[in-house]
């Protein structure tokens, strides 16, 4: 019993630690595998299309994060500068799973009026990881 608690605590401590974008991508892959039976991997090309599509509404991801997302973005409403989204741009992007999830939730709601699936998040992250400076 004690060992289980210890392992759980260790797991929680590790979960709070910084991760790499690749680790976050792997966790989306694990999610996509369990939720979508026909999952056939992530596609950066599909991610790119998803990122710049407006999905029947006013904004795309690129409206604020720019295309390509390796440079500084600009908030579509306030015009404020947004640090580059692609991890290759040297930012701390996609190193905190909780922050990643929180902002996917907020921004997917703004662009698609719904939450994104693990497949969509993985595709976008694959595209961002492919986007070199």
């Amino acid at each position, binding site marked *: 019993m004690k060992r289980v608690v210890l392992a759980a605590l260790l797991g929680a401590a590790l979960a709070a630690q910084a991760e790499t974008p690749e680790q976050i991508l792997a966790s989306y892959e694990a999610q996509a595998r369990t939720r979508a039976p026909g999952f056939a991997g992530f596609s950066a090309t599909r991610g790119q299309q998803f990122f*710049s599509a407006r999905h029947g509404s006013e904004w795309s991801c*690129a409206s604020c994060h720019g295309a390509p997302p390796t440079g500084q973005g600009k908030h579509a409403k*306030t*015009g*404020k500068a947004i640090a580059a989204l692609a991890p290759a741009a040297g930012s701390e992007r996609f190193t905190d799973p909780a922050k990643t999830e929180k902002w996917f939730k907020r921004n997917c709601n*703004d662009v698609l009026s719904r939450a994104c699936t693990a497949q969509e998040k993985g595709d976008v992250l694959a595209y961002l990881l492919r986007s070199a400076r």
Partner: protein
Amino acid sequence: MQRILVWDLPTRLFHWLLAASFAGAWLTAESERWRDVHVVLGYTFAGLIAFRLLWGLVGSRYARFSSFVKGPAAVAAYLRSLLGGSPEHHVGHNPAGGWAVVALLALGTATALSGFMTYNDLGGHFMEELHEAAAGAMLALVLVHIAAVVLSSLLHRENLVLAMITGHKRGLLPQAIRRPRWIAGTALAAAVVAFLSAAYQGALPDVVQASAHAERSAHHPHDDDD
């Protein structure tokens, strides 16, 4: 006991304007579409809190901190009287409510400061989390406050919501404040109206309203994806 003036006009205006700006900021928090409104409401909220801190020093009798920030013994006695079913009647804030005011002002200050820092890219993700935690704690306290107002209104058979609108409560004539402080109240209302209309017209400095800057200096490449 008769109907006497207890809450001066600036205190009442502050109360309802703070409630409105907090509610508005809460409702515009989740979407980037409302980010500009959220920020303007945040500044309004911060300005109101700054006013209240000042008014707590120079306002009329029941608006002053010295009249409602009591020691732990007074708070304990009041809470005991609540449990006993015959609550002490206080003309101004009761001792527990007084501390709720202090806590609301402290959480409001933390919310506004952390929001300002987040919006200006200071303090990073931690500041963003602090902003949400402080606002969430403030909302929880607001709900406790509303429940306490309903409960006290029933226990004392006195409509406290109405009292915060008209300024009048039941009391003895010597307990009344003398003047409603029309001038300070009008000045507060005018300042809020002036700030909001300047924001609406996009006439605020860049630190408040980045969009004004963006529109002046921007090159908007016309892109179908945007």
